[in-house]
């Protein structure tokens, strides 16, 4: 009977997961009234924002993935590639990274938006999953991967321009300001790299992995880390200006407005900090962790707090003029993907693979159909 009970215990691990549930949480990219998003089943989907119709969707991988081993316990996600990062759009190319260590580029036919894009592929030696987003700038695309490297690729053909190796995996999305790229790593450092050749300008050490995307504003780099600290550094040399301590990790990207930093933490709070001194002005306790990066729409910060033990999220607006908090929407789904803003609306991609457009002022909601169509 001992063995049978242990067997049930073992099987329960297959249900609860052993670190294998990499499903993804792609954000939304918008270009020329077309919305691009990576679905939970590994497809890149394009939606016409005007009428909400789907233009096309294309699976990143065309070959079926193997199942989860004996009794479905082996590491495997859904049937295809998990997509965590937000797609990047540059001219007529759309880039997206997969948890399978590959980066994909698709050439969109701008004259025929409904035509399926052409895949532009090049084999790259990336040896780790891609979790952060990709950014495109001046003919290059930049990304970090779980092999610990920052890559700069030619935007047209994917040729590697340079790479820079850190001490551990990278899950963060890079940010570029001028000729400097900033990115965090699991080796507990924030790096500043020269975008022309990847040489290190400086690095700043914390006491925990750096996963969140930095914010660069007015010569200062703002970011949070797993040591529960939020930092402000001089962008020129990485020297510390100030730091602030919360009660849990920082995962979401901070937002700034009118000299005030809005830093969201997994302790469920949005901290309102003076951008110059780091002094806390107040905090909003949302009751659930904030992992999805918030956005500013007009005077309102739109932020999503996701419950831990149930499929539930609440979308809040925090009015920066009077510090008033309102519930914009309650969802029966988790939200981990970053929020995207555009034209007074926000776009939210949920873990149930639903995609919503919400008017911040009126609260009107529109849902886009991005489910896989039967062939």
């Amino acid at each position, binding site marked *: 009977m001992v063995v049978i009970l242990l067997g049930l215990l073992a099987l329960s691990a297959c249900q609860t997961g*052993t670190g294998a549930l990499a499903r993804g949480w792609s954000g939304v990219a918008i270009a020329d009234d077309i919305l691009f998003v990576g679905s939970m089943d590994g497809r890149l989907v394009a939606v016409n924002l005007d009428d909400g119709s789907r233009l096309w969707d294309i699976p990143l991988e065309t070959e079926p993935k193997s199942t989860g081993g004996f009794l479905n316990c082996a590491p495997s996600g859904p049937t295809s590639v998990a997509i965590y990062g937000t797609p990047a759009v540059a001219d007529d190319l759309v880039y997206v990274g997969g948890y399978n260590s590959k980066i994909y580029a698709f050439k969109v036919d701008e004259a025929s938006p409904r035509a399926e894009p052409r895949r532009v592929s090049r084999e790259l030696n990336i040896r780790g999953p891609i979790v952060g987003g990709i950014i495109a700038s001046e003919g290059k695309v930049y990304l970090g991967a779980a092999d610990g490297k920052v890559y700069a690729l030619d935007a047209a053909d994917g040729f590697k321009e340079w790479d820079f190796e850190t001490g551990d995996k990278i899950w963060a999305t890079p940010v570029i300001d001028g000729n400097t790229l900033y990115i965090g790593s699991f080796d507990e450092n924030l790096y500043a790299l020269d975008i022309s050749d990847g040489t290190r300008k400086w690095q700043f050490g914390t006491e925990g992995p750096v996963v969140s995307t930095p914010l660069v504003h007015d010569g200062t780099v703002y970011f949070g880390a797993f040591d529960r600290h939020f930092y402000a550094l001089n962008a020129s040399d990485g020297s510390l200006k100030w730091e602030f301590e919360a009660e849990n*990790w920082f995962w979401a990207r901070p937002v700034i407005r009118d000299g005030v930093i809005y830093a969201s933490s997994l302790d469920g709070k949005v901290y309102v900090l003076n951008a110059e001194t780091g002094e806390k002005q107040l905090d909003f306790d949302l009751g659930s962790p904030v992992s999805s990066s918030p956005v500013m729409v007009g005077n309102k910060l739109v932020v999503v707090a996701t419950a831990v033990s149930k499929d539930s999220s609440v979308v809040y607006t925090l009015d920066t003029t009077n510090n008033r908090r309102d519930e914009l929407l309650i969802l029966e789904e988790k939200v981990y993907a970053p929020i995207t803003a555009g034209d007074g609306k926000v776009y939210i991609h949920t873990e149930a693979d639903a995609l919503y457009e919400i008017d911040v002022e009126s609260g009107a909601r529109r849902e886009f159909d991005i489910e896989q169509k039967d062939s």
Partner: protein
Amino acid sequence: MAIGDIWDLIILNPMINVLITTSEYLFDNFGLTIIVLTVVINLLMYPLTQKQLKASKAMQSVQSQVAEIKKKYAKDKQKAAEEQMRLFKESGVSYAGCILPMLAQMPVWIVLYQSIIRVLAVSPEDFLNLAPRLYSAWPNVFSLVPLEQSFLGLDLAAPNPILALLVGASMWVQQKMMTPATADPQQRAQSQMMQWMMPMMFAFLGLSFPSGLALYWVTSTTIRIVMQYMATGWGSLVAAPTSGKDTGNRGRAARQKKPLSDADTSADIIVEASTAQEEGSDYGQLGDKRQDSGRSNPAGPGSTRRQPGGGGSNRRKRK
């Protein structure tokens, strides 16, 4: 608050934080932490484990009498049940004595198991699920995650075939030690099937689990093997030794054996060298004379079966 939330709050989350904090004192080594905590928890549970092992052993010791009761009252199930209860009462054994200590240990095994799974965070979702469980009053735990997942060349977050084999092998050893010898061919067949089926199943599962979990299984099973040995010896794992000497005990075994008849010529059993005293000697050491009755079984250890018509003589051979 749901039961799951209560479980997380008072049992799982504390264990997760203890696991992470302990690793800081064990050279930031998660593999070592798994082993040490598994050992510590098993030692703390030893009184219960010992109770359960003794109860199981006592239960095994009366199985032959139970079989006799069932045989005697084969047509009167109620009487059989009554006699069985009377036997249990007189012997001081009960099914509850075997099961209750084990049930009391189950939450501990489950929580250690679940906490290892959660701390072995691999995917981004794992990290997000782990973060709310960390205690803000223990600031170190935030900086310690993710834990060092390399141990003796293993990636604790990835499956490892060698550890999977060890999971199966250790389970087989434990099963073998726990399973009592039986003369009933049907029971023996069932026992043998269980002895192989469960270890093989766990070995296959071990090929899918992170090796950190397999490490926990192997450590826990090894400890239980040691405890089993201390309580009941090697059990069926070590076959009773055979001897070529003709001792006085052989005569005793002969007297215990049923007299052969002509009807037995098609199934001659020859008792070779094992003696009544050598077989099941562990039981003998513990003064359990009832175990000796098992040796009157002509199909006991050390016996060989002569092929029908292979000689005709029903006499026992002397060596």
